[in-house]
């Protein structure tokens, strides 16, 4: 009787709690269960391995782990890719951080001119899908010895043959990932630099410190927590990168963990993939945990820097303009040239042709039994799939984001609020390829009332939505905490129930946040390759996977043309967010997409 009354009172007075627990159940089912199941599967003999393992299907066995970690194959299958992955991740994170910090310093704390132009073009490489950046790297630096065997821009036009190490393997992967990701560290570093009140630095000067001493003893220690967070986040995302490593690594047989995982799954050795996926998830989780500790420390700093506001600007003197031009030229090459290269190649019949004889065959014509991308039925299907995937994902996640944001802010401080917050953040820990594999294994058989989802569009929708939850819920929480409690309470006092408060007060007030959330996940879903590549089947192809398949087939111009289309969607979406909502879409989150 007591519990019944309690239940009644919760249902009546705090219906949001019921919704909250429902959300936790659903999220738990969609995120935690598949992970546990995958771990479990690596200890169970799978069909097709009966002979190799010497045990029956479903029996317990440590065969898969032994094979990956301690057999003769282990070096090729696991340790080499592992070392490659770490080398790439560490190097590119360090580079991205240095570049990001330098740019942030110039934009926040120097008197460099053209700040607003530079600020907006600096994020273009970040908006471009990382794999498209890798493709354009090859357009510039490939040589006629490896891969498609056609000379790139440098060889064809300048007559210099780029060495293999510059075209394929770790060096270009590191460079491309750095170019793609440093905008993220730049955004984190500039937020940190802007939060340093000028008085902190000026006091050091007055106490007799020289500029260098002041930077070393005051400025750097103050932004160090933000920098280490940026480093860890980029590092963690680097572990899971697939697109760049596939485009630039596979032709030279250079493997990282995610490409190894992809190859294992492709040849049907799912369990090998599981082991790698679990390893990747575990490493990411450890890193994120470390990051949370660091962020906890940083809070200490930000609460006492006073009212903020004034930022100390250092004069570059006569270097002002030279520096600004150098930065502009750099971004022209990092952000604009890649797009032009992709477009340029797609407008030529032969890859070695960089002349001005443009040709629309790959867009509108027919060649070798393939249709130009604008008239090809497969492309139409892919475009249709991309569009509906992005729209649905955008809408679903933006809506869930707002609801979760509401619950978390409304119940702030309670266990429920923390639990929702944490559980919706979990997908962020999972490298996309690992996440894809988790969903592949989970939905390969019917689950409860739900049928087998593998091979359906619904699976793409579900996987991409869940993987974007962290972004959407963070956005939702920040939107909702801006709305403020009193507005809703005023509605409550005038007698509005939960539903009408939500639809009549909260949703209208969070319209902008909703829009921003929608467009951002729309863009991110439209350019996703790493996650959907494992889940798609011929009739659920999207533009990115089609571009990737053309790239694998060596039909590069088709691939590039499709990349241009995806880039166009990404740029347009980002521009729309800025235009419509005045929200800077890239604060707070990093990722390779």
């Amino acid at each position, binding site marked *: 009787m007591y519990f019944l009354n309690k239940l009644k009172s919760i249902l009546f007075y705090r219906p949001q709690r019921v919704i909250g627990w429902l959300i936790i159940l659903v999220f738990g089912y969609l995120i935690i269960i598949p992970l546990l199941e995958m771990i479990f599967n690596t200890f169970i003999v799978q069909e097709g391995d009966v002979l190799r393992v010497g045990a029956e299907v479903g029996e317990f066995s440590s065969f898969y782990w032994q094979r990956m970690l301690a057999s003769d194959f282990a070096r090729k299958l696991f340790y080499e890719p592992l070392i490659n992955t770490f080398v790439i991740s560490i190097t590119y994170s360090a580079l991205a951080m240095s570049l990001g910090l330098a740019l942030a310093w110039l934009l926040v704390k120097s008197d460099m001119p053209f700040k607003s132009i530079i600020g907006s073009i600096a994020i273009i490489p970040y908006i471009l899908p990382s794999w498209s950046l890798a493709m354009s790297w090859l357009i510039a630096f490939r040589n006629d010895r490896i891969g498609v065997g056609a000379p790139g821009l440098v060889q064809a036009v300048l007559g210099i043959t780029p060495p293999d190490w510059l075209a394929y393997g770790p060096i270009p992967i590191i460079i491309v990932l750095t170019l793609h990701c440093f905008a993220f560290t730049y955004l984190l570093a500039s937020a940190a630099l802007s939060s340093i009140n000028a008085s*902190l630095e000026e006091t050091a000067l007055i106490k007799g410190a020289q500029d260098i001493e002041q930077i070393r003893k005051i400025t750097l220690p103050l932004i160090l927590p933000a920098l280490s967070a940026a480093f860890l986040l980029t590092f963690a995302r680097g572990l899971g990168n697939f697109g760049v490593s596939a485009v630039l690594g596979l032709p030279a047989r250079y493997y990282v963990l995610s490409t190894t995982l992809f190859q294992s799954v492709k040849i049907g050795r799912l369990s090998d993939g599981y082991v790698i996926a679990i390893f990747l998830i575990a490493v990411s989780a450890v890193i994120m945990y470390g990051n949370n500790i660091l962020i906890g420390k940083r809070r*200490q700093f930000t609460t006492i820097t006073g009212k903020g506001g004034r930022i100390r600007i250092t004069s570059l003197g006569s270097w002002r303009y030279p520096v600004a031009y150098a930065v502009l030229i750099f971004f022209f090459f990092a952000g604009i040239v890649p797009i032009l290269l992709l477009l340029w190649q797609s407008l030529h019949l032969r890859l070695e042709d960089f002349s001005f004889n443009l040709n629309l065959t790959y867009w509108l014509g027919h060649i070798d039994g393939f249709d130009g991308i604008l008239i090809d039925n497969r492309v139409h299907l892919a475009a249709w799939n991309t569009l509906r995937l992005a729209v649905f994902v955008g809408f679903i996640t933006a809506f869930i984001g707002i609801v979760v944001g509401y619950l978390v802010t409304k119940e702030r401080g309670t266990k429920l609020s923390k639990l929702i917050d944490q559980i919706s953040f979990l997908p962020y820990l999972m490298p996309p390829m690992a996440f894809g594999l988790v969903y592949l294994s989970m939905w390969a058989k019917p689950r409860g009332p739900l049928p087998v989802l593998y091979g359906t569009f619904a699976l793409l929708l579900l996987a991409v939505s869940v993987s974007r939850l962290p972004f959407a819920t963070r956005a939702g929480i920040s939107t909702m905490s801006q709305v403020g409690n009193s507005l809703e309470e005023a509605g409550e006092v005038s007698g509005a129930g939960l539903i009408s408060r939500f639809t009549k007060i909260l949703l209208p007030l969070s319209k902008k946040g909703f829009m921003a959330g929608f467009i951002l996940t729309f863009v991110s879903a439209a350019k996703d390759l790493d996650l959907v590549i494992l889940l798609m089947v011929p009739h659920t192809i999207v533009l990115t996977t089609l571009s990737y398949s053309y790239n694998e087939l060596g039909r590069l111009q088709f691939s590039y043309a499709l990349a241009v289309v995806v880039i166009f969607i990404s740029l347009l979406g980002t521009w729309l967010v800025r235009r419509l909502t005045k929200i800077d879409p890239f604060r707070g989150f990093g990722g390779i997409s």
Partner: protein
Amino acid sequence: MSRIILENITKKFGDTVAVNNLSLEIEEGEFFCMLGPSGCGKTTLLRCIAGLEIPDCGRIWIGNKLVFDAAKNIFVPASRRNLGLVFQDYALWPHMTVRENILFGLQIRKVKPDEQKKRLEEIMKLLQIVGLDKRYPNELSGGQQQRVSLARELITGANLLLLDEPLSNLDAQLRIGMRFELKRIHEETNHTFLYVTHDQIEALTLSSKTCILRDGQLQQLANPNEIYKSPQNLFVARFIGGSSMAINLLMARIEGEQLIGDGFSLTFPYLKDLENSREVILAIRPEEIQVVVDECIDPLCLPCVVSSELLMGHETLLQLELRGQKKSKIMAFYNGQTHISIKMHVWARIPKNAVHVFDSTTGLRLGTIREEKNTAGQSKKGK
């Protein structure tokens, strides 16, 4: 050694002139206040002295050292001016303990560890923050942060301390306590304090000399008493007051020996020297007006009606209207025994030395009434 001389300092930010051709001398050991409304250029001036801003023209001496000369391209950077600066937000480094914060300047100067320790103990005693040395700034209260920040600036032995609105982040009670503290520290150290504030009471209570700035220009430079007693222009009169109430302003016209306004006239013999029909503004502080309940035939009494009253604890603030003339309103304090009610008839007695007369167009002071011996005031209605 820490006398400051500013000569024709001008500082512009784009088209805005923050400091306009300003010259000033600050004596050694002085508690000098720079007072003015926000945007008057006082902080900019302070930052120019600190070496954090470079003026567009002029010269600055600190002690006997020329630290800035626009004409000769001399600029000594902040790090070599050897002074202390307390910011409004204290600017304590959040990543350092109290001890590390205070010792920073000595470490930069490579002072020996023994000496550092000795000075740290002294300064912590002086500022009464003994025992806080291992704390981080965010573990301190506002008042403690303030003291640590003062300790950090004083420990280097710089005998010029610049303070930029140091008390404005404290709550009202702590602020009053810190005023006493600052006065004590100033007396104990005998350093030159240069104190920027927009709070006139802070300036009047703390300083040995105050300058008032407006739009980057000097309005008056004097000791606090003189500024209060004889404001040089209308701006100073309105800005400075003993109470939180705005000063009473009455329009009047000079006719012979009389000041004639709407519904009143006051007679002052020395006004004869001034041209007739000149328009003037009379400024009278509310706290200097005596409100009399019984009929008053004194020629300095103006008959009034109470139009509104606000009880403020130990006294009552009254809004008075001159009888028969509703436009002129006078604010005054009353702390007598009789109960005051609205519409009651009272008399406002205006002491002769309470009236400040300013030219209505230039706003400049037109002489001092209290210096005249035979000053007489008379109201029309009193006749």
